[in-house]
Each structure stands twice: as C-alpha cells, then as structure tokens.
C-alpha cells in the first residue's frame, strides 16, 4: 500500500504516493528524475548517495522515502543550480579531484556540510569527514586538496567582507 509523502526537494514542495520499500534515493531518482544522487552499495557504506536532509548529509539509500515526511531535501542538483557549491566544483575540476565522477555528488555533500560547520578544516578533519565516502579512482589526495582550497578561499572571502564592512562603518 502506498503512503503519501510531503517533502520539499531543492526548494520545491513535493507530494507523492510512494511504496514503503522505496528508499529516498530511489524516490529522488525514479520518481523525481534527480539522477545526480548515485547508488553504489545500497547499504550505507560507500557514500555515493548522500543528500542533505534538513541540512545534514544522510545516506539516501538508508532513509526510506516515507521517512522524509515533513523534511527538506537538497540534492546535488539543488546545490549546483543555486551555485552553493560552484567554488567546490571549480576546485574539484582544477585539482582533478574526480575521474569517473560516480562518488562526486556524495563528496560534494560531505564537503559542503563540513565547510558549513568548520570554515578552515585541517587535512585530518577533511579525511575524517570523508571517511564514509569511497572513491576508487583518485586516491583521495586531490579531493582533500580541493576541499582545503575551497575552505581557505571561503575563509579569506569572509574575512575581506568583514574588513570591508568594518571600513565602511569606520568611514561613517
């Protein structure tokens, strides 16, 4: 028997009847056509299916679609279309931080959540945040580089914005 689910996906309210056995990942991919969320292991080990649920990264393969009731979901489509991760994407590109790209949407979710919490993470902290994300191509080093570079750039941008506003206040 299908269950009605009300949720918000990438800013758009969604109401759909879903079968209970559908994972959030299947719901996003098959019902909503958001195929940027990738399915790897379907048992919570590889991290390819990470999405943001109420702002925190979760495995879309381990969350049932029915459990997203009342929640807010952001997928890689949402984060890229709003430009929220444009700098991360740029740095992943610059550092060749992907090869086949299957893990990348999950990596972006973990990276975005880490940088939101900790603007200037150490390499160890980045590796810890990525401990549930498998990449079988890159050897991770370039991914850590790209996230560290994004963190530094964002921290510098925040600092100069604060300095600019302090200057404006001083001028007034």
């Amino acid at each position, binding site marked *: *028997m299908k*269950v009605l689910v009300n949720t918000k996906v990438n800013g758009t309210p969604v109401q759909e009847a879903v*079968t*209970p*056995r559908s*994972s959030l990942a*299947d719901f996003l991919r098959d019902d909503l056509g958001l195929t940027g969320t990738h399915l790897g292991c*379907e*048992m*919570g080990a590889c*991290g390819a299916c*990470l999405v943001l*649920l109420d702002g*925190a*990264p*979760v*495995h879309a*393969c*381990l*969350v*049932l679609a*029915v*459990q997203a009731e009342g929640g807010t979901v952001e997928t890689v489509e949402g984060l890229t279309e709003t430009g929220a991760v444009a700098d991360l994407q740029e740095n992943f590109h610059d550092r060749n931080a992907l090869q086949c790209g299957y893990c990348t949407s999950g990596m972006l*979710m*973990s990276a975005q*959540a880490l940088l939101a919490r900790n603007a200037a993470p150490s390499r160890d902290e980045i*590796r*810890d*945040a990525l*401990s*549930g994300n498998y990449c079988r191509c890159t050897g991770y080093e370039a991914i850590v580089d790209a996230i560290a570079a994004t963190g530094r750039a964002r921290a510098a941008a925040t600092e100069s914005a604060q300095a600019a506003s302090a200057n404006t206040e001083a001028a007034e």
Partner: protein
Amino acid sequence: MKLPAFEYLRARSPEEAWQLHSEVEGDAVYLSGGHSVVPSMALRLQAPSRLIDISGIADLHGVVAQDNALRIGAMTRHAEVMDNPLVARHAPLLALAAPHVAHPAIRNRGTLGGNLALADPASEFPAAVLALRAEIEIIGPEGSRHVPADEFFLDLYETALAPGEILTAVHVPLPPASRVFAFDEIARRRGDYAMVGAAAQADLEKGMIVDASIAFFSVGFTPVRAKAAQAALIGAPLSRESVARAQASLAEDLDPPDDPGFPAHRRLQLARVLLGRVLNQMETRP
C-alpha cells in the same frame, strides 16, 4: 539490494505502537533512525512484514537533566550525542564514544536507542552505558521499567527487551565533579568496527581510586564489564603498578572468541594495551 516489500505504519504513542506490533505477532519491527534495520533488510538478514515508525513518539525525544540522572531520549541521534552540552557534562563517555561510531552521515540519522536495542557487541555505545552504570528505560504493555545496563545486554543481539517493548530512554546517574572518564578503541580505519574498545570511569579521593567502572567492546557476544581489572585498581593510586595489575587481571575478565586471522590471545593483548591507554588518559585529565 532493494528492500523486500513491507507495510509501513506510524505510531504516535507507545500504546499505538505495541497494538500495531501485536497485530502481526513476531513479524513487526520498530523503526527509529533505521540505520540498522534498513541495511539488514537490504542484505536480506531480515524481512519483517511490517515496520512501525516510532520516531514520532514524543516520549522518545529530548535530553533532560533530572534530579539524579540525565535522561537521554531514545531518538537522540548520534550527532546530537556528540554535540549536546548536557551529554558532554553529565555523560561524557557517550560524547567521547560518539565520534568513533560509524561515519558522519550515519551519525546524522542513527539513534542512541536503536543502537542499544540492536546491541551489536562491536558497537561503542553499549560499552559506554555499561561503564556509566546507566539504566535503560523500557515501556511496554505491562508498564514501564528501568533495567540496569549490566542486566540489559544478554547475548549476541539479545537484550532484556521483550517482544513489543520499546526502549524509550537512557538514564545516566549524574556524576560527581571529581569523576574522571576515558574512552578509546583500536580500529583498522576511522569508522570501522573496533578490534577492541574500552570505556572507563573512576572516582579518586586524595589520589586513591575509590571506584572504577570499566567496560570493553568487540571482545565477545556482549559488552563486557572488566570486574577483575576494576578490583585491581580500587584502593590504589592511579600508578604504573596499579595499571599493570589491572592489565594482568584482564585475562580473568575477557574471553574473546578465536577468529580466523585474529586469535583470541592477540585480542586480549590489544585489550591490555588499550586499558593502559585509557587509564593513562584518565591520569592526564585536568
């Protein structure tokens, strides 16, 4: 794999939950965070006909300091256990254990109650509640009861929970300010199950250990209290000699299984090394 088909129902109260549970005798599973239930279904380790979502039951939520104990609701996610200031202050072993539990995304969904109800012997929280001498709050058709952690973990994935009962909260006795805590584990990689892990707390008076509570995990079918090691410490100062005595007595406490490629004697040796580490961490705590 995709999950086998099942019926999904939401319970708004404990009464509704066990009513729905009893309708399909032996074939219903409660769902909180779902981070053990869902993968076990994906792996076809179980295929219940009905999942009863208990995450909306109000009684399972919240962290509250009460008269003598900190009540941590069963729905408290691992990430909240890690960050909650009341947990850090009153139940530090849980806060210290949380970063070792799986990976960040798992910690955002997995719940403390679900973790304890599963009773994975390689998991961190069961040993932490044992060392904290916590009580498990259970509610069921027969009423509500508190079970000491020492009597809760019975065997491999087997607990004091009767069919239909719900683990509602954990009660951690409020510690005196002087109590010291330490938690550590030895794992091959970050987020992997530990080869061996330990949670410990001790009370010191004038430099002498007057009480010690030590629990190991990944050493058998349940988390294990290290009674002989505790006894070896009580009445002595925390010193090289008392630590060595506690390490030597661990053979009486632990009887780890002989795994292919990981013999029991090696696990016991790692447990001794780890006990030394956690006791030294206690010593260096401010």
